[in-house]
């Protein structure tokens, strides 16, 4: 019990003393996962929209691939990205291995299927006749899609949250492709693994609290947007 108590006290001290390294790690986590989530939205929203609304050959296959992708184990993604980015690998010339960029790539591969799959689900919840109704009111195809996104904004935000949640808490791939290099690629999750391994429980607890707060705050912000957007604005 003393171990936990002292760990907590030390953690609070670390958090409020403005320990530079703790904040550096936190900001890097936020930046890397934020960029990965943003990119996964850029890919997943159009892709998911096409798969939800389009009628094309191989649609069922594409859907099942995306659904499988939603459950991709991060370590497998880490392995694949490592192989591709390895100095002698196919994309080795970029020199991305053990850089934050490599972590973004790996997290993008983890988050994109989540955002895509949930976008499909979000748009399939909308009454299919609404498309006909909007076309019948003179909407262009683009306007129909915009209106449908707007209509499905709550589940779409949930898709974004799930995408962010899947990468901010992920450790395997970040460790493998980032290398957990101090001041360079150390993010919250990899740092927690390291500190726990060293028996530095106070630091591990402090970092865990930050990770939880971060996840909580991002979700709080998105929830606030959700609540705000349900009111009929003029």
């Amino acid at each position: 019990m003393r171990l936990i108590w002292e760990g907590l006290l030390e953690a609070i001290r670390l958090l409020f003393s403005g320990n530079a390294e703790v904040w550096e790690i936190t900001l890097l986590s936020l930046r890397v996962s934020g960029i990965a989530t943003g990119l996964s939205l850029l890919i997943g929203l159009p892709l998911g929209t096409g798969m939800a609304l389009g009628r094309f050959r191989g649609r069922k296959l594409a859907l099942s691939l995306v659904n499988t992708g939603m459950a991709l184990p991060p370590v497998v993604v880490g392995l694949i990205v490592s192989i591709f980015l390895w100095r002698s690998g196919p994309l080795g010339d970029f020199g991305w291995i053990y850089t934050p960029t490599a972590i973004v790539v790996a997290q993008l591969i983890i988050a994109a299927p989540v955002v895509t799959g949930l976008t499909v689900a979000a748009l399939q919840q909308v009454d299919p006749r609404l498309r006909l109704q909007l076309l019948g009111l003179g909407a262009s195809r683009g306007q129909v899609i915009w209106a449908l996104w707007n209509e499905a904004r709550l589940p779409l935000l949930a898709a974004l949250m799930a995408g962010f949640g899947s990468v901010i808490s992920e450790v395997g791939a970040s460790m493998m492709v980032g290398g957990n290099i101090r001041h360079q690629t150390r993010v919250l999750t990899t740092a927690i693994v390291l500190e726990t391994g060293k028996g530095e429980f106070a630091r591990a607890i402090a970092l865990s609290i930050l990770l939880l707060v971060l996840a909580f705050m991002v979700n709080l912000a998105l929830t606030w947007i959700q609540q705000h957007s349900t009111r009929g604005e003029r």
Partner: protein
Amino acid sequence: MKPVTPAEALFEIHDLAIHRQGQLVLSIDRLTVEEGEILAIIGPNGAGKSTLLLALARLLEPTTGQILFRGQPISHDLAYRRRIALVLQDPLLLNTSVYNNVAAGLRFRRLPRSEVQQRVQDWLGRLEIAALRDRPAPRLSGGEAQRASLARALVLQPELLLLDEPFGALDAPTRTRLIDDLHALLKSTATTTVFVTHDQDEAMLLGDRVAVLLDGRLRQIGTPEAVFSAPADAEVAAFVGVETVIAGQVTHAQEGLLTILAHGFTLEAVGDFDPGQYVLFCLRPEDVTLWVDAGTGKSSARNHLAGKIARLTPQGPLVRVIVDCGFPLVSLVTRTSARQMGLIEGQPVTATFKASAVHLIPRG
């Protein structure tokens, strides 16, 4: 093909056929709708009514044939869709305020903000939902939502308004009021409207003309009076509610008064037929009067048939009585008279109807 279009025709359908999954679901040789006209299309579920509407909205590609809009074949483009407006069966409002819903079509057309505001305000008022302008659509009642949905289409001032069973989900008083209001608005704006329903009352209340669509084919088109009192054939008759339809043969004809032999009865009717011709003899249930003490009252009814009550079915304020006269004859009486006359099943009664109430359909 060179279209020769009378100036007032808004659209014309020529040899239209639509298949779905290899099945012919709609086949219309010719249909013309004039500017400012309200055409009610009635038919049972699955008759192809909605298909026709979607084809007119150009949201469905006809297999063959064409639709001319102001003399020009309608094209697949946005420009045509922005001249018309479609209202589907359920209100299908967007999850935002009533104002934003009604403004949606105008915003699709990128009209200036001030014009959008003014037109939306105007139509919210005309449909008596101005007080609801800021209310989120999910919190509207069925009638309010339907008004918002109609306002959303009418605010576009479409050259052609297409309505797919817009009153289906409403309770009776709400529906009656909305139909009255809509009729006034359509007439005051001279909006050409094609309106689909399976309800005859709605068709009669709104339609300048009524078209009967059965199994994907246009079976009859005419004024509501003509269609409902003089159906073109037995199936139309059955659909529009002429319930007694019996086969007979004209035995005698004199100055329009016919004697017809049907099921062993000699019946009288009015019509232009020759002796020997086979006809279908159609009667609406409300035109049949029942008597429990036959022959005591003098009436102008030419036809008196004795029979027994086979079945009594209450229908709201009315009772539907099936009299077995050797063939089933259907009569509608009020609950009050059924009670006062003490009608019970198995009771002998006399059914009477005037020769002029009979509608005759030639039988091929």
